[in-house]
């Protein structure tokens, strides 16, 4: 069972390292923000998606917190999390330089997200039993 350790950035947002690629391309490691308010798989800046050679294949809509909706181009991408590899739709976002992973990625990889700001603890675990009492795994 793989437990993945992440970190907190300077604004105490949780980060995990993932590798992203086109389905048959080389992978690039990036630090991705874990955002449970994002229901997608992964979001990539447009420039990063272009560097990876991702092909735009679909369009969908996202609804933002202020109620507005926006049109989002989607590309099929491969994400590696520790030893595991899965594929899903990457949201290609212009005007942003953040890589974000959302709850769909947690579902696809079947991971439990553990966050403690006071302990500076960011974990992705397979089961709650992986968490040892009295300390991090």
């Amino acid at each position, binding site marked *: 069972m793989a437990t993945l350790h992440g970190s907190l950035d300077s604004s105490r947002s949780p980060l995990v390292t993932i590798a992203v690629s086109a389905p048959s391309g080389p992978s690039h490691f990036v630090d991705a923000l874990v*955002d449970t*308010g*994002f*229901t*997608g*798989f992964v*979001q990539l800046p447009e420039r990063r998606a272009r560097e990876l050679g991702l092909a*735009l*294949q*679909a*369009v*969908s*809509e*996202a*609804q*933002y*917190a*202020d109620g507005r*909706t*926006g*049109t*989002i*181009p*989607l590309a*099929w991408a491969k994400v590696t999390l520790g030893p595991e590899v899965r*594929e*899903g*739709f990457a*949201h290609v*976002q*212009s*005007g*942003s*330089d*953040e890589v*974000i992973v*959302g709850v*769909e990625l947690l*579902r*696809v990889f079947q991971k439990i997200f553990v966050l403690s700001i006071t302990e500076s603890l960011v974990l992705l675990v397979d089961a709650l039993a992986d968490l040892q009492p009295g300390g991090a795994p």
Partner: protein
Amino acid sequence: MTARPRKSKRGIPRADIAKSTSFNPVEIAEAGRRIYDRQRAAFERHHHGQYVLIDIRTERVFIGESPEAAYHQATAEQSEGPFYLVRVGQRAAFRSRRQPNGDAARIAR
């Protein structure tokens, strides 16, 4: 002389994206919405909460419990898109707390 827009069997003009080789998100979304709206009642009656992936060129529809499941169906049947993805019964297939232009416009709620 300009050509009239090609029409589907139901008389609804198809978007130029159906003939185009470029990827234009706005045109794809408009064409996808038109196709979806023709079958909206049936989708909402039988597939509420599921994801519908529409091949804009062929108008073939793939339905799954997740975006990935719908896409795997499409690729299994050699459908190449471009696709329009909808979540049945929702205003948008995805939600995000962030504004589309990233960090600076993050919404704190």
